[in-house]
């Protein structure tokens, strides 16, 4: 069975609604990527050096990252030789296969699931640089968990940015969950501490902690974050159950540096890739999984409460290659 067919079967087993949402959300991304690959395949009859050079550019333009692209191209070249592929249209399949392979690299798909404590309080810590979508993601996630029947509380740990607390409160109202807050300028660790106590006394299932955006090279701010995390681990056994680093899909190579430093300081367990509804392709997550072994757990596909979807590398690639798959099944 061809790879596209396998991929398609896999997707068909999931609810259509989820897939459509993902597909629609990534429409812009897919259109440009697919048309580029198609165009490439149409222009080159044979698989030669020039073909690979151009393929390299397509991948780079998706922010996949120079190093990962180089590795990928090398592997592709080998694969093409091994399978004795001469026709460019056959390469399409190998490309997507490799992309998924690079992503999973032997891991199974459960790495994408959110990790929660089934009996007792779970704490989710949200971190990231400025303006990536942390607070919005918390609102969406609260809505999601609540509709799964969970009792959710939010803690307004961003006491720094103007209007940050009000913003989280609006999201709390929208999602119908409580928000624990202090006044602007107060100690974030103290807010989180209070959030934990409130969550415990309310018998909540999940506490989601917002934090102020901070650039990873600000040592004192990163120390502050380490302190917040320490309070969480001290107050709840096994917590935080998830430390989600929020990444903006428009971010380029700096995302690697972000993941590295935030991982060092807070032991990031998963990534939320936001703003994938734009034209940026977020290819950097391939490099991040490949180089730093942190999986993407959710993607943000808009500014509304429902615009958060679980990540699935197959869907991600389907989003990139959906049209190609269509073609193949038409052919067969």
């Amino acid at each position, binding site marked *: 069975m061809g790879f596209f067919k396998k991929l398609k079967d896999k997707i068909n087993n999931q609810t259509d609604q989820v897939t459509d949402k993902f597909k629609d959300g990534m429409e*812009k991304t897919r259109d440009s990527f697919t048309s580029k690959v198609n165009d490439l395949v149409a222009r080159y009859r044979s698989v030669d050096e020039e073909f690979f050079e151009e393929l390299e550019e397509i991948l*780079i*333009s998706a922010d996949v990252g120079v190093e990962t692209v180089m590795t990928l191209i090398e592997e592709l070249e080998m694969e093409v030789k091994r399978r004795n592929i001469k026709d460019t249209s056959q390469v399409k399949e190998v490309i997507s296969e490799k992309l998924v392979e690079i992503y999973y690299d032997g891991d199974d798909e459960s790495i994408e699931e959110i990790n929660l404590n089934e009996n007792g309080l779970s704490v989710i810590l949200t971190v990231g640089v400025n*303006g990536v979508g942390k607070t919005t993601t918390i609102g969406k996630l609260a809505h999601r968990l609540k509709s799964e029947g969970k009792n959710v509380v939010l803690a307004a740990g961003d006491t720094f940015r*103007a209007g940050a607390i009000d913003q989280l409160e609006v999201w709390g109202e929208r999602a119908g969950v409580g928000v624990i807050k202090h006044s602007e300028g107060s100690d974030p660790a103290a807010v989180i501490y209070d959030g934990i106590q409130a969550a415990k006394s309310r018998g909540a299932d999940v506490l989601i902690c917002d934090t102020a955006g901070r650039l990873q090279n600000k040592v004192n701010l990163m120390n502050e974050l380490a302190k917040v995390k320490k309070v969480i681990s001290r107050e709840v056994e096994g917590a935080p159950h998830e430390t989600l680093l929020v990444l903006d899909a*428009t*971010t380029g190579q700096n995302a690697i*540096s972000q993941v590295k430093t935030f991982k060092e300081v807070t032991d990031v367990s998963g990534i939320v890739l936001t703003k994938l509804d734009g*034209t940026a392709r977020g290819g950097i997550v391939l*490099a991040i999984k490949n180089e730093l072994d942190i999986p993407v757990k959710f993607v943000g596909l808009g500014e509304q409460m429902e615009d958060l979807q679980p990540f699935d590398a197959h869907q991600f690639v389907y989003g990139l290659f959906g049209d190609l798959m269509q073609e193949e099944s038409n052919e067969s």
Partner: protein
Amino acid sequence: MAFEGLADRLQGTIKKITGKGKVTEQDVKEMTREVRLALLEADVNFKVVKDLIKRIKERAIGQEVLQGLNPGQQVIKVVKEELTELMGGEQSKIAVANKPPTVIMMVGLQGAGKTTTTGKLANHLRKKYNRNPMLVAADVYRPAAINQLETLGKQLDMPVYSKGTEANPVDIAKEAIDQAKEDHKDYVIIDTAGRLHVDEGLMDELQQIKDTVQPDEIFLVVDSMTGQDAVNVAESFDEQLDISGVVLTKLDGDTRGGAALSIKAVTGKPIKFAGMGEKLDQLEAFHPDRMASRILGMGDVLSLIEKAETDVDEKKAKEMEQKMKDASFTFEDFLEQMGQVRSMGPLDELVNMMPGANKMKGMKNMQLDEKQIDQVEAIIQSMTKKERVEPDIINASRKKRIASGSGTSVAQVNRLLKQFNEMKKMMKQMMGGKKGKKKGGLNFPFM
């Protein structure tokens, strides 16, 4: 993944061609390959990179190697010139309308920093030009966006015009200007909601605001961490709104900021300001030349040079260079240099600014031992004038005297003498003297 700057990247290739009189086509090919990777890693758009590489190749092939520059430095020079040219000169002026108020509109993607920059610009206008701005809350979509701007207004003690979230942004902008006229405000800065450049409905709204208020400036606010997509964003906003300038935010981070180059290349519009932090006074004029160096991973080399230039007068530097070349560099000179270097700032900071420093083992996080440097200084100071100029005369008894004078040991004095000799040899090689094989890096006696 090591994030190498161009200078680091080129070191391998440079070694191979040092000593050649001409840069050959093959050399250029190898070096431009590295240049290409460096630019791509810095997030410069691949199309922009392609054009640049073409021009660099044309310029670099067949060039005579300039006096005093090795071929690598020469390529860097060409690359830097091309980049600087592309980036244009410094332009941080803000328009002034014939009839006040001058209207500025802030636009951009979600989370880029529009609201913060609105506050920063207002602060800048008041501080630098003694202006009286009014802020306008035209983002009715993002939760608490109005609140955010009002908080900034309070911090600045400046008026913020808002009409709640039910009003239409076009009406808000229009009425705000009437209000500003009435209140004799000379600047109006309109904060708009973040939006995707492909969101037709919302882009249309900006167009309507523009048509209604006829702004004197439209600033596109862009996050400096943006990757390859920066060209699409900038191109779209510019096509639809004909922006007048760009503000690049979050440059206080460690991003290379190649997006700057991409944006300039596709829009031709000046990047006017740089956001350097979250606070309202952290806005700076944008320096294209510094940005060019930063993208190449040499920003710090440049500031090092700048620092050195202001501290050392040129004639002296020339003299020093000559001394390094003919190996007549003495302990006396060394002492003077050390003094100059130390006056430039904390040493570990300076070392980290040097290209290649992050590649040297253990160098990156190394705390340079200031105590050790004090010792070196003390040893030299305990030498007589003659000994400093002619270290060869330092025999065993002199060594003993120097050691006790500086509170060190004879072994330490010996080590310094040996290292100083090696350093002199190295300098001679580096300064374009005879070619010779080089082992390891440059070893200053205090490292």
